[in-house]
Every structure is written in C-alpha cells, then in structure tokens.
C-alpha cells in the first residue's frame, strides 16, 4: 500500500488542484493582456479587474484564518484599512521624494502596508489566544471599528474627508494586481501544504490533541493571523491605487462580512473555492451596481441577499442533505464499487453476503476446519471479496464524469 502511494505522481495525489488555480489565473491574465493590447479594455473593466484581484486576495487570506485555523474573524477589513492608509501614505511620501519608478513605489508601499498590517495582526492575534468562537468574532469586529475610528480622526491621513492617493495607470494596474494575487495564492498554498499548514489544520480539528502532540498553538495562531493581515494590507494598497481616495467608511464591518461571505460560499478551507466565489461576488456586485441606478439601486442588495440566503440554506440545511448528495457529481462516480460494501436491504441477497460467523453452526470459530463445508471459504472471502457481491449497475451518467 505504501509503495503505491509513493509511486503516485503529484497529479494522482490531488495536488493538481493547486496548479489549476495558478494556470487559470495566468491564462486569465494573459488573455486580458492580449485583449488590452489589441482592442483595449474599457474604462470600467480596468477598474473592475483590480477589484476582483484584491477581493480574491482578501478572501484567500481570510480563508487562512476562518477555513484553516478555524477562528471566526470579522475584522479583516480593519487590516485592509491599516494597509490602505499606511501603504498609500508611504506611496505619497515616496512620490513626493521623486525619482522613483511607479512600479517600485507600489511594491515598496505594499511591503510597508503588509508589515504594518501584520503588526496589527499580531496585536489582535494576542486576544485571539484567549477568546473562542463568537467572542473572538466580536473582538475582531470591535478591532475593525476601532481602527476606522482612529483613522477618521488622525489629521495627517485626511481625516473624515479621506486620504487621496495617485490613481495607478489602468493599463498596468490589473497586471500588477493579478501578479500579486498569484504571489498570495502561491504563498498560501505552500503554507497550507507544508508542515506548518498541517499543524494549523490540526489546531482547527482539535486544539487539545494538537497541543498534546507538541504543536505550539500560540505560535501558529499568531503566525496565521499575521500572514492573513499581511496579505490584507497588500490588498489595501491595491485598493488605494484603484479607487484613488481612501475613505474609512469603506472598511466598515459590512465589508469584513462581505469577505467572510466570499469565504463561506466558496467553501471554508478551499483556496480555489475562495478565488471563484470572490471573483463571482465582486463581479456581481459591480455589475448590479452599474446596471441598477437611481430608484432601483436597492434591488442590488435584495438580489444579493436572496442569492446569499438561498445558497446557504441549500448547501447547509440538514433537510436538504439527501437532495445535495443526489446531485453531487462525486457521488455518481462513487456509487458503483462502494455500494458493495453496504449491507443490502434486499433480503434475497443476504445469503450471498459472506460473513465469518455462521449462524447455523452452534459453535462456529474462524478456522478452516469449521468452514470446511461452508459455501464460502474464509481465504477467498478476504482476497476476492468482490466476487461474492452482486455488483449494482453503474448509472449511465456517472461513467461520463471524469
């Protein structure tokens, strides 16, 4: 068994899922670049694309905390706020000094924003060690509101009017945004698939057991909080470069919740899912916002809310479980061989299910002599179990699934 495991290639191990996200993001980026060079993207597309990219970054980084560490955080927009203000302030200072290429400015400001946000992540990670579940959620929410309130009142960050920063060139901003996204996804996937990532998942599954196995829970919780905050801070700089004016109202707890919704709808603990959900929700938000204006503007939040409620009830309600399993493609595929393991309800097949205990023999023991006259020799039972089952017919549509 172990031998076959080592022989398996990365693709058979399911690691191909990691590469799919890189491939899709890269392909998407290349197509976009080609379109932009040949036809030219519209003005609205140029601002939509970076938004999708930084939403994906936020969702992936929050997924580290919620999906992998298993702690509910409602303050992710707070880290983004810190990153946006500090990063764009740095960018403004660097531009004021002059003589630096724009690309370098944005990279340096992203690094500064990430580091400052990570320090804040450390600060909020400390209470996270004492609090659990809903209490941690409200503490992180409070943190987000505190950050907003402080930035609103600091005069050198523009105060209530917001801080303005230079809009980045639309033709290259989306490339920078997607390359940063690639970097974030790369870091997150490698972190999760490493020894550290397995330790984090162990903490999520059972903290006490993880502690007993010698995992430093404090260290890993702080690490994940800081990494997530780092990426959120970077996303904040991209936000500033896309929007131009940073206002603290944007980073209210509603925004944190929106990121959380992306993570939950995409599937907690699934980076690819977060990417898809973040892209779709952001696109949906922007499209609905631009399509519905004036008196119809609230229809956007109604549609958004209805989609949210229906999807969550559909995918989580215990009453819908049977229906969910019947439409899940994985179950079509599995039906064939797996069904053999189940005990049949059909009484006519019961005598064909090999058991080691023979009810007719008064003192049956699992030895060859006892089974001498039994219809099913025990050795055969172990080696070729499948021969003795009536294999159910495989569903026709299940075969087509890869």
């Amino acid at each position, binding site marked *: 068994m172990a031998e076959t495991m080592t022989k398996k290639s990365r693709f058979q191990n399911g690691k191909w899922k990691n590469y799919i996200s890189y491939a899709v993001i890269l392909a998407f980026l290349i197509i976009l670049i080609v379109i932009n060079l040949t036809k030219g993207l519209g003005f609205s597309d140029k601002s939509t694309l970076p938004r999708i990219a930084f939403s994906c970054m936020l969702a992936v980084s929050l997924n580290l905390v919620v999906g992998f560490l298993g702690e*509910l955080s409602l303050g992710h927009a707070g880290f983004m706020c810190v990153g946006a203000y500090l990063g764009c302030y740095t960018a403004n200072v660097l531009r004021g000094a002059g003589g630096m290429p724009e690309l370098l400015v944005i990279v340096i400001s992203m690094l500064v924003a990430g580091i400052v946000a990570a320090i804040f992540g450390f600060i909020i990670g400390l*209470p996270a060690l*004492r*609090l*659990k*579940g*809903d*209490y941690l*959620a*409200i*503490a992180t*929410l*409070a*943190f987000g*509101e*505190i950050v*907003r*309130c*402080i930035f*609103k*009142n600091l005069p050198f960050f523009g105060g209530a009017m917001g801080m303005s920063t230079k809009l980045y060139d639309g033709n290259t901003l989306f490339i920078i945004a997607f390359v940063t996204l690639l970097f974030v996804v790369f870091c997150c996937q490698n972190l999760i698939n490493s020894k550290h990532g397995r330790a984090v998942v162990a903490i999520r599954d059972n903290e006490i057991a993880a502690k007993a196995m010698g995992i430093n829970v404090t260290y890993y919780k702080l690490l994940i909080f800081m990494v997530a905050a780092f990426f959120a801070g970077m996303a904040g700089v991209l936000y500033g470069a896309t929007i131009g004016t940073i206002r603290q109202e944007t980073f209210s*707890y*509603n925004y944190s*919740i929106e990121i*959380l*919704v992306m993570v*939950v*709808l995409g599937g*907690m603990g699934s980076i690819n899912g977060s990417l898809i959900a973040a892209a779709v929700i952001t696109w949906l938000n922007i499209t609905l916002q631009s399509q519905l204006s004036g*008196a119809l*503007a*609230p*229809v*956007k*939040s*109604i549609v*958004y*809310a*209805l989609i*949210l*409620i229906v999807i*969550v*009830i559909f*995918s*989580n*309600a*215990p*009453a*819908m479980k049977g229906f969910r399993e019947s439409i899940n493609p994985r179950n079509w595929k599995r039906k064939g061989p797996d069904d053999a393991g189940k005990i049949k309800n059909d009484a006519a097949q019961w005598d064909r299910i090999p058991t080691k205990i023979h009810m007719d023999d008064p003192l049956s023991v699992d030895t060859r002599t006892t089974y001498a006259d039994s219809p099913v020799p025990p050795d055969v039972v172990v080696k070729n179990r499948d021969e003795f089952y009536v294999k159910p017919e495989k569903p026709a549509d299940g075969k087509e699934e890869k």
Partner: protein
Amino acid sequence: MAVAINGLSLGAIYALIALGYTMVYGIAKMLNFAHGDVIMVGAYIIYTMCMFTWNIGSMPIWLSSLISFVVAMAVCTCLGIVIEKVAYKPLRGASPLAALITAIGVSYLLQGIAQLIWGADQRTISILDRLGTVNLGSYVIKWSAIITVVVGAIIMVCLVMFIKKTRTGRAMLAVSEDKGAAQMMGVNVNAIVSITFAIGSGLATFASMFYLPITSVSPTLGAMPGIKAFAAAVIGGIGSIPGAMLGGVLLGVVEVVCNSISAVASYTTAIEFALLIIILLVRPIGLLGKKRRIKV
C-alpha cells in the same frame, strides 16, 4: 445630572436591543445580525403610521402615536417570527456559521426592501420630543430621556418576572440549558424559539420608539445601535439577561460621557469597542457570564 440621565436612557435603549441578541443567542445559539434591522423596520413603521394618522386629523397626538406604536410592534413581532421560520429554522442543526451568514443575508434584504419602499433619504419625526424638557434644579432634562429610563426599567423587570414565573419563561430557560432534554420533557422547542424571536423583536420596537428622538430614520438606522448593543450583550456575558442589561447601561453611559468631553468625543466609538476588548481580555465570558450561567 443631565449626562447621567441621557447616559441611562441611551443605556436603556442599548439594553433593550441587547436583550434581543442575548435571548436569541441563548435559545438558538446564533448571532442574529438582522436584529438591528428589525429596529430600523420598526422605526419606519412608526414613522409611516404617524404620518398617516396625523394626516387624518382630529385625533389626539398621543392616541395616534400609540396606535402607530402598536402597529409597529405587531409588524415587528410577525417579522421576527417570519425571519426565524424562513431563514433560520431550516439551518437548525447546521454549523453556526451558516446561520450567521443567513442572518447577514436577511439584514441586507431588510435594508434593501426598506430602501426600495421608503428611499434612501433621512427623515425625522418627533413623537417623544414633543413632551419637551423639564427643569430639575439647574439642569434641563428631556422628558423623552426620563420616559426611556422608566419604561426601560419596567420592561426589564417584567421580562425577568416573565422568565422566572411563567411556564413559557421557564420553558425558555430549559431550552437554553439543553434543547434535547427540554424536548423530551414535553417542551415544544419550535414554539419556544418562535416566542423568543417574537419577544426580541417586540423589545426592538420599544428600542426604535425610544431611539427616534436621538436619530433620523434611514435604511441604515439599525446598523450602529445594533452592533453596539451586540457589544453590550457580549460585555455582559452573552446569553445572560442581567448581563445584557448591565452591559447596555454601561455602554450607554460610557458613550454619553465620552461625547460630553470634547477632547475624546470623536474617539467615542473606539473607546467603546476598546472597552469591549479589554473586558473580554480580563474576563473572556463577559461580566456576568458564568460557566453554568442562567441564559435565555
């Protein structure tokens, strides 16, 4: 003195909202994010009904206000039950996070619907304001603040009596202790959960009535008091009814005191939430939360 009364009145409002949070949390083990928006709906209904009855004329103002308040209360109570049946009941037994997300969805939905019906602009209406002010010695105090404190206190005493003395109240306690065991003892859990949501929404209507003199009516009216009341519920120990009252009053007094000192007035929100974090750090289960705490 004026600061104290105003603080107590704001605290009473927060406590009323926090009771809704804490009761629902005790019974259904979920954070009802849509609670703040029930307050908003209540405020809009009061506004609309007042406008309607005042236009008819020939009705004394106290009567029309009372009618609109009763209508708002009925609507909000029904709304609470409908939300519970449609959005939360299918998810009972699923992960708490799923219920949290649906609650957020319901919150957006209510805000969207309110904006569709009443528009996004802010409206003001004076009901309790009309009572004017009273001079106590050298202090000028609003009647609305005094009424809020008095009525709030009466409601809380009634609620505690209801929970301690009536069959339904004790059934609520039982469900919050152990849902399965309560069901085996013949408690109708579904009915109890619905009643809890109904009471929570009814209390929210009181809160919206008392909140009207302080603020203007808009679709996002419920967001900030909702989140602060939630913080109050957590400060007091979520699931604990006296805790919610204590937390609400504490937060209200802190907010008014901070607002009255000009040096820190603009940092009020930060101070309140910092208080929350500090209390959670010192006592992670809240002020009155206990290991075996009495919760509904």
